[in-house]
């Protein structure tokens, strides 16, 4: 299938949303739409709380606990006007009629994290996974999304929608670990009813070219939203994050830290939009973007974008771009650690701040390992 024949125009560099990310070459690559799998029954000892999405479809019937359901829905799925530029999300909607819908009933404290693994098995294919998670009132759940495939070459256009009912709480851990020659375009759409809490940890560590658009809509009073993002690139990769936290109701709180570690000739784009509408009085919002350039040829384009209409709000933002501190390297060297290992340790330390808030130790260890794997040659250091 050739890209381009949609009612939504194919992205061009002239558009603000695509200024630093050139996707024009994708138009010339033919990506056949992947065949969807048929959900098969699991083995005798089915993995609990695991949802496997293969080539964009549910690959087996999951074994879910605590009244959680997972169905394949054909209910209409639409995007609001904020996403009119989002060609790849529209591509997903146009060619995939089904949504994998997980529902957490009201008043459920889900003990075991719900894990969604996305994998692609068909080389050179276009995959269009779409997940909807609805979380009932006063319920709490940890959602782990992991994008990781044995295939090399594919175009993954994913949509994840998370709807939080009043006073629901979601901890969302998203690891984008796509193959180094894959293309990954994804939108994460979160809507929060009053007093709901959404904490997310978003690691963009893979893909040759990736674009992630986390959009958080505060749609009730007193919501809490946190995004902790980390992008690591090397080689000639490019990773682009366009986030938006959209406040429309009073007394909301939001925090965002986006960190990037950029090596070789790779590029990172970060555009962090915070919108505070007229009704969103007493919004308390802060955003910080911190980038570490570990090569003289690495490139970062980082831009905070604050649009504030309400008149009584606390909003702050900041951006730093730096290299490793020679004083810190010297400190480690003076303890017998060679400069290469010192740089790697400090780079890891810079990265780990992002996942510091994760209280589940095993989960934090897993993410630490993912980060170490993404930092080139870290394991070769004489750190054991």
């Amino acid at each position, binding site marked *: 299938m050739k890209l381009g024949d949609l009612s939504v125009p194919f992205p061009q560099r002239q558009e603000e949303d695509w200024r630093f990310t050139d996707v024009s070459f994708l138009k010339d690559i033919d990506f056949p739409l992947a065949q969807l799998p048929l959900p098969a029954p699991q083995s005798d000892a089915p993995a609990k709380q695991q949802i496997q999405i293969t080539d964009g479809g549910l690959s087996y019937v999951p074994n879910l606990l605590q009244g959680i359901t997972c169905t394949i829905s054909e209910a209409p799925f639409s995007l609001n006007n904020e996403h009119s530029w989002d060609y790849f999300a529209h591509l997903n909607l146009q060619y995939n009629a089904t949504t994998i819908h997980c529902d957490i009933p009201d008043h459920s404290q889900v003990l075991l994290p719900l894990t969604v693994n996305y994998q692609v098995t068909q080389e050179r294919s276009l995959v269009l996974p779409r997940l909807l998670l609805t979380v009932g009132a006063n319920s709490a759940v940890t959602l782990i999304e992991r994008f990781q495939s044995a295939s090399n070459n594919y175009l993954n256009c994913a949509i994840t929608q998370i709807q939080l009912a009043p006073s629901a709480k979601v901890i969302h851990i998203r690891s984008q670990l796509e193959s180094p020659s894959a293309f990954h375009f994804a939108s994460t759409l979160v809507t929060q009813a009053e007093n709901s809490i959404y904490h997310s940890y978003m690691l963009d560590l893979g893909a040759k070219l990736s674009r992630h658009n986390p959009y958080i809509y505060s749609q009730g009073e007193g919501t809490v939203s946190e995004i902790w993002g980390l992008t690591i690139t090397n080689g000639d990769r490019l990773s682009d994050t366009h986030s938006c936290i959209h406040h429309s109701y009073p007394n909301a709180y939001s925090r965002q830290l986006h960190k990037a570690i950029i090596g070789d000739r790779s590029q990172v784009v970060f555009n962090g939009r915070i919108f505070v509408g007229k009704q969103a009085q007493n919004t308390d919002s802060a955003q910080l973007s911190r980038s570490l350039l570990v090569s003289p040829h690495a490139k970062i384009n980082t831009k905070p974008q604050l649009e504030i209409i309400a008149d009584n709000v606390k909003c702050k933002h900041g951006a730093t771009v730096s290299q490793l501190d020679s004083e810190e390297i010297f400190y480690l060297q003076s303890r*017998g650690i060679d400069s290469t290992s010192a740089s790697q340790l*400090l780079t890891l*330390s810079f990265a780990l701040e992002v996942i510091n808030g994760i209280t589940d130790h095993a989960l934090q260890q897993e993410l630490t390992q993912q980060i170490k794997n993404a930092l080139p040659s870290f394991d070769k250091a004489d750190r054991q």
Partner: protein
Amino acid sequence: MIVPDSATILSVRELCAEVDGVPILKGVNLEVKAGEVHAIMGKNGSGKSTFSKVLAGHPDYTVTGGEVIYQGQNLLELSPEERARAGVFLAFQYPLEIPGVSNLDFLRMSCNSLRKSKGLAELDLLDFDDFLQEKLKVVEMDSAFLSRSVNEGFSGGEKKRNEILQMAVLQPTLAILDETDSGLDIDALKIVANGVNQLAKPTNSTLVITHYQRLLNYIVPDFIHIMEAGRIVLTGDKNLALELEEKGYDWLKEGYEDEP
């Protein structure tokens, strides 16, 4: 302690160094033998901190003249990590914070890099833990400090104690303490000094850099050197510090400026 016929650990001759083209050290001479504790005192800007950083190999300082022989080898040829592995230790005036790296991991990494350079087997977590429990006692540190990130959120006193803990782990031949007393209350000062005293052996030496006499009540030096404008201008025994404390640094000027 002064040990008769002990080996020379450090020999500094006419050492000159600059930072950003500005000369700071202008011919430092110093001889340190095994077992000895030396103190270098001086006003702010006299070059005493620079001296400690040059010995540790800080990249911002350029040596423009003179030589430093450490245990028979040219120290200035070695990288900072090679100096550390050879037994030179600098306790920092302002220890750096390394968020996300646990104190335990850092100490083990540091200890193992030294062991590796000596051809010794690296210590695994269990062996290292046993080794470390002994060292914690030296600075009266709780093992809870080990799971915290290196120096992150530590008080001034805790950071300095952590430096001495690192020193206890690395067991240096030449320990250089740069203004280790700054920012310490009297209790923390006693703990730190007590730690340093426990680590001082007839086979190693200690160089204490300080502005004030206070620390020298607890770490009693065999020699005191006064640094002024990038040179050591006066050397004496521990009583020199008391005299300085009483008369102030300006008193010195009259003394050495008359010298040829």
